[in-house]
């Protein structure tokens, strides 16, 4: 239902565009009308990889050019029509995406962008070396339609439009599925995504394959429109830049972005070339460049987001006033009295997680040394220690962000050390992060559903798990709010829900109470206690002793990477070594003996 209604703007836009293009008789304007969807598709292809994963590709021309050359060479050497060759170009583009993606995804950030830049430039020289400086699609005077050579140029526009519609629908389907969620999660925080059970490499490879396939197909179609293919015209820097330009101008990470960018920029560039080019040669580039610079400065994420944020603010501001009146305390929903520890019979269950002699050092720094402990079913273990004690490193070892130097991690008796984070997540270890990484533009439900895919087979199941998880932390009432509008406490709870959505058996909570006021902390503590009552096993890192003493069943105190004390809260808080580690020697005098 919701899907169909949101499709309406796309269908209306396509229909309108088709109607306008059919009314254009001037062949030059027809060409421009054709180039708009061509570059929009190319922008969408770029968007599918870079817009959603945040891994900027400067090298999409590689796929585009391979597609273009495939179509031209296919017709020259094998007399294969573009009707056949464009799908083949898509396959080639996909394969190229896979081959390029596999080694390049080892890199991140700027390194990834720069490495991607190298591919089309390298391929460009290969094609020059092959002697393919200029190849043309042979003109077919006998059977032009069979070779996609239309006398009526409007047919090219319609064809391009059909390809664009297909690409938009595909992108939207991806955007709404676990595929899109996984990509968005990678964009926000690749590590967190791994931690939420997403096999990031696999999803990234799927994204680059699909993106390459789309780029290959549209490159092939572009060759049909351009008729002449030169390495510069399909592998050149400007081609890769075109994809970035339309997407970034229009809006990154949305299907509308590249379309908006292309609809505005391509006719603008052409008009400038036509009107200004012969009178003031070169001025077209200056104006075009200035226009792009202005938009980047004023709307860094692209026009789409700027306009949407503006509209949302306008429509939201009166609504916000009314809703902020009766403040709904998020965690107050099922406000049962916090159960005491004794109600849960903790510490008597089976050992679910056992850590033996775990060590990890960074150069000379022994971040974690020889740590051993057992986590029993339904237990809440508090891991405390001063800053730099190695608490977060310990968690990173437990959920696979770091490989242990030595030692064992046994989950239900199975050795799990050195596994990838998404594998450990699948095995039932969920975690939250000290520094929150919410997906700010997404609603709470969408944020949480990312974490559900590790368990869910279908999108519907994932939604159900997410809804359950949100209910467990008491955020159901505001589940549709955008994460960017939430308070710290709500964000903490949302993170908790994201971890819960994957139905872990063990939760690793990294400073979940950090940055919360006293009352807020109590609300979160209540939620954690409820989780424990419902059978969850929890390890929690925290600084604030006070809240912890009421919460945990036992403490593990770390200092300088090693366990200094382990035991019941009451005993641990009185332990002189703990006080020393936390407060320094001068507080030792106050310690009860």
């Amino acid at each position: 239902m919701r899907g169909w209604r949101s499709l309406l703007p796309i269908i209306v836009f396509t229909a309108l565009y088709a109607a306008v293009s059919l009314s254009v008789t001037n062949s030059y304007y027809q060409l421009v009308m054709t180039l708009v969807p061509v570059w929009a598709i190319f922008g969408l292809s770029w968007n599918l990889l870079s817009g959603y994963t945040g891994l900027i590709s400067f090298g999409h021309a590689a796929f585009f050019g391979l597609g273009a050359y495939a179509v031209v060479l296919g017709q020259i050497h094998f007399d294969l029509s573009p009707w056949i060759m464009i799908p083949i170009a898509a396959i080639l583009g996909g394969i190229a995406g896979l081959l390029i993606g596999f080694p390049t995804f080892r890199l991140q950030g700027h390194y990834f962008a720069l490495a991607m830049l190298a591919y089309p430039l390298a391929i460009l020289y290969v094609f020059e070396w092959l002697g393919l400086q200029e190849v043309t699609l042979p003109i077919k005077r006998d059977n032009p339609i069979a070779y996609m050579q239309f006398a009526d140029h409007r047919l090219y526009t319609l064809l391009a439009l059909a390809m664009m519609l297909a690409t938009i629908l595909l992108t939207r389907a991806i955007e709404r599925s676990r595929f899109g969620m996984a990509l968005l999660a990678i964009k926000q925080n690749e590590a967190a995504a791994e931690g939420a059970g997403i096999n990031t490499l696999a999803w990234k490879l799927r994204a680059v394959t699909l993106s390459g396939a789309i780029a290959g197909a549209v490159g092939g179609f572009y060759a049909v429109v351009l008729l002449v293919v030169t390495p510069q015209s399909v592998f050149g820097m400007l081609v890769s830049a075109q994809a970035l330009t339309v997407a970034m101008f229009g809006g990154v990470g949305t299907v509308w972005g590249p379309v908006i960018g292309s609809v505005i920029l391509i006719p603008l560039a052409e008009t400038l070339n036509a009107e200004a080019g012969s009178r003031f040669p070169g001025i077209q580039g200056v104006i075009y460049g200035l226009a792009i610079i202005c938009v980047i400065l004023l709307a860094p994420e692209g026009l789409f987001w700027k306009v949407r944020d503006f509209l949302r603010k306008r429509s939201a501001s009166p609504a916000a006033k009314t809703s902020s009146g009766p403040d709904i305390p998020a965690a107050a929903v099922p406000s049962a009295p916090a159960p005491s520890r004794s109600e849960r019979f903790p510490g008597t269950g089976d050992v679910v997680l056992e850590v033996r002699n775990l060590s990890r050092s960074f150069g000379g720094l022994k971040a974690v040394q020889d740590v051993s402990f057992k986590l029993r079913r339904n237990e809440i273990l508090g891991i405390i220690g001063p800053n730099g004690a190695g608490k977060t490193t310990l968690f990173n070892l437990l959920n696979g962000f770091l490989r242990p130097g030595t030692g064992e991690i046994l989950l239900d008796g199975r050795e799990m050390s050195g596994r990838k984070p998404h594998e450990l997540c699948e095995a039932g270890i969920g975690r939250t992060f000290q520094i929150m990484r919410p997906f700010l533009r997404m609603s709470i439900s969408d944020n949480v559903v990312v974490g559900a895919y590790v368990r869910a087979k279908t999108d519907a199941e994932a939604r159900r798990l997410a809804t359950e998880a949100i209910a467990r932390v008491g955020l159901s009432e505001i589940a549709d709010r955008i994460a960017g509008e939430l308070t710290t406490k709500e964000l903490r709870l949302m993170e908790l829900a994201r971890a819960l959505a994957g139905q872990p058996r063990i939760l690793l909570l990294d400073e979940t109470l950090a940055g919360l006021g006293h009352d807020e902390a109590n609300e979160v503590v209540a939620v954690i206690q409820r989780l424990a009552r419902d059978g969850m096993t929890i390890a929690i890192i925290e600084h604030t002793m006070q809240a912890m003493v009421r919460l945990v069943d036992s403490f593990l105190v770390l200092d300088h990477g090693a366990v200094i004390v382990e035991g019941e809260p009451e005993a641990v808080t009185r332990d002189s070594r703990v006080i020393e580690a936390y407060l320094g020697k001068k507080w030792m005098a106050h310690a009860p003996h």
Partner: protein
Amino acid sequence: MTRATRAALTRRSLLAGASAGLISSRAWAQQPSEVKVGLLVPVSGLYARPGTVMRQGAEMAVDHINAQGGIKSLGGAKLKLVVLDSGDTTEKAKNAAQRMVAQEPDLVAASGAYLSSFTLAVTEVTERANLPVLTLSYSDLITDRGFKYVFQTSATAGSQAKQALPQIVKLAETASGKKPKTVAIVTDNTAASVSSAKAMRDGLLAENGLQLTVDETFTPPLADATSLVQKVRSARPDLLFFLPTVISDAKLLLEKMNEFGLGQGKIPTISFGIAIAEPDMLQTVSPELLQGLLTCVASWGAKGHEALIAELKTRYKEPWMTQNAISTYGDMWVIKDALEKAGKADRVAVADALRAMDGGPSKYYPLGEIKFDEKGRRVGAGMTIVQWQSGVPVTVFPPQLALAQPFWPKN
């Protein structure tokens, strides 16, 4: 003003006439006061400089034609030049061509588009619009596609190398007394250079008794020419064929040659194409380094063009007349002749006239005739060899066009 009024009156009277229909308005269109000719060349971007020179040549020709009474068979109609910017990419060139045929429906012919790859793209459009295009681009591919509306005034790349090599061998032999035996090729990988070098490798060198000892291809822009020059120095060939497209590459290599003691004719250096003889060369390379350098070009200001060369100098401050200026100048005259023959301002008629044309010996293109074969290539199209002499590249071959005697650097 008066012309416009007369035209308006004619139209009004025609429209008023009972027979005013499609045919009569066409009849009116056949007697225009002005005939539009297109020039689609790069006037912005990387290739703006050669494009501008082409425009200068075209403007001069149009002025000359109009001053001499315009198109006589069209009642003295004047030529009007419509300049379109092909930009610096194949896509821009193709779009400009589309714009040309769409926005200027009354063009009768055009000239363009400098780079072979631009011309290839442009003619894909003009062919479909039945607009005849004259081009100085010399890729063989342009006239190998079976097109009917493209006319290549230059000798094709393959043919140029074929014509040039025997001349160069002969020149070397008469000047130095011994026949050159070994050659080196240092070429960039742009389309024109590649096709010239390919023709040489694929048999031309062997036919002329030359042995290839060094064969190096580089990608412009060159960062450092040392390794290239070292290879040439260790092989010590009798001739060096050096095919740059970018002036900075030419400068780098020539300076490095000089540094290694190979410059100024120690190893006679022959280029293909216009880059090495562009006026811009002098801004970066000293005339001494260029002295004696030869280049084989499709066309050049030559004997019989002295007045034009002088006019170009005074009017546009161009120090000499390159292929771009003289060829485009010639194109306008060929279009003029075709219009005279066609007797109507109609692109298909002009194309027919061009195909049937037999204009006798060529005046502005080197050698051959003003006549096109079935592929659209100019019959007997020759080429020129140009030599840097005292800071000016002058035509030294063929003898009937030579402005100076060639000299062979003595080692």
